């Protein structure tokens, strides 16, 4: 288990792969054109791998992946931490 909290891990990852060092927690990475389709797949694999969860067909909702806050909330729901 990584000792760093999920939101920080998500921020570190997003800032690295999007090359946007100052992402706001509520910034919509899709609406603001920060991510592309290649990244979307990698993001899903990253979330599954890092937080040991499986993203299902029913989880496919941009609202779950739109921002650091949204991803952290989604991870918390999937891991039962919410």
């Amino acid at each position, binding site marked *: 288990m990584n000792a760093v909290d999920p939101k920080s891990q998500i921020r570190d990852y997003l800032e*690295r*792969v*999007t*090359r946007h060092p100052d992402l706001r927690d509520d910034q919509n990475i899709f609406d603001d054109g920060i991510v592309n*389709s*290649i990244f*979307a*797949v*990698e*993001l*899903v*694999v*990253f979330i*599954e*791998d890092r937080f040991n969860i499986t993203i299902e*067909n029913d989880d*496919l*909702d*941009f609202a779950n992946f739109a921002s650091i806050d949204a991803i952290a909330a989604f991870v918390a729901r999937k891991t039962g931490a919410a």
Partner: protein
Amino acid sequence: MVSTARQEEPRAAFRSFAQAEILPRAAEIDRDQRFPEDLLRRIAKQGYLAPWLPRESGGQGMDFVTYGVLTEEVGRACSSARSLLTCHGMVTQAIARWGSEAQKRSLLPLLAAGQRIAAFALTEPTVGSDAASPQGTAVTAGDRLLLNGEKSWVTFGQRADLFLVLARYEGETSAFLVDRDSPGLTVSPVDGLLGTRGAMLANLRFEDCLVPKKNIVGKPGFGFNMVASEALNHGRYSVACGCVGLLRACLEASVAYTATRRQFGTEIREHQLVRQKITDMMINLRCAELLCRHAGELKDQRDSRAIAETMMAKYYASTSAVRAAGDAVQLHGANGASDRYPVARYYRDAKIMEIIEGSTQILQTIIAEFAYTDLPAR
């Protein structure tokens, strides 16, 4: 690919099957531009169409490194046969990853057994590399959808029972499963291709084609960035591994020919410029093998870096295959330009590899992005 002890036994079985069943028919498949149904059935019977699926879905639970070895051995024998594994595998993997529970339950066992053959309908007459923007449309009509548009260059489209189709739905790119016998779907064969001539390509026309709403794969709006991307990731790995097989075939043919062909009083393998080409082929083969193996290991670990590493493997293996096939033809001289030797077929097949599942130029554009984002983390 470079085998570990774990892959040696399956590799021997894959090679034995490919040499006995596929290789002897490769020239005929290329010449006739048809893939024999009995050979397709034999491949299916071996469980080679989707062996990475879990056993409960009809697969063998095969790891991706071993699946890469299978694809390599099939690609070494016949690129059209490798095309079957690629296109069928792309759709199967997309359903396995993003299909509904009902789609998975009803389709995966049939796809694994080859009782249904699947093809991926992505490209359109005016949509190629910009595949995220299909012109075809789907609109709601009660509990069904009406699909309109055209798809081009659909590998195994002549034979497929099921198509994974991308179209605009509610303004967003979405993915749909369309049965071959759907009313409003017309399938037209495409012949006269440069390479992989037995891959039975087809063009599709959808005219108010009726599709049940439950045939949407994933969710509307995720058709390209999740469903098609999953298929393309799988396809790139398959093509990369197939290119390793093609590279090996080029090297083996060139070694055999240059060891027996005599000019200037000696076998031509003794000439330095011949040796230089053999050396390049051997090193490029080894590099491509290692890249594919690394990508396969990351896929098995479900590591997000697998996407970038698979692109690199596909780029390197396909460009190397084109160079190796060109050199193989050159080493064979006039014989290489004839159908008496397989290298002319290798040359034509290799060029196709640089175009499909992300052209060399698209991959060059994307891979550079990973250099800017991934290197700082390593």
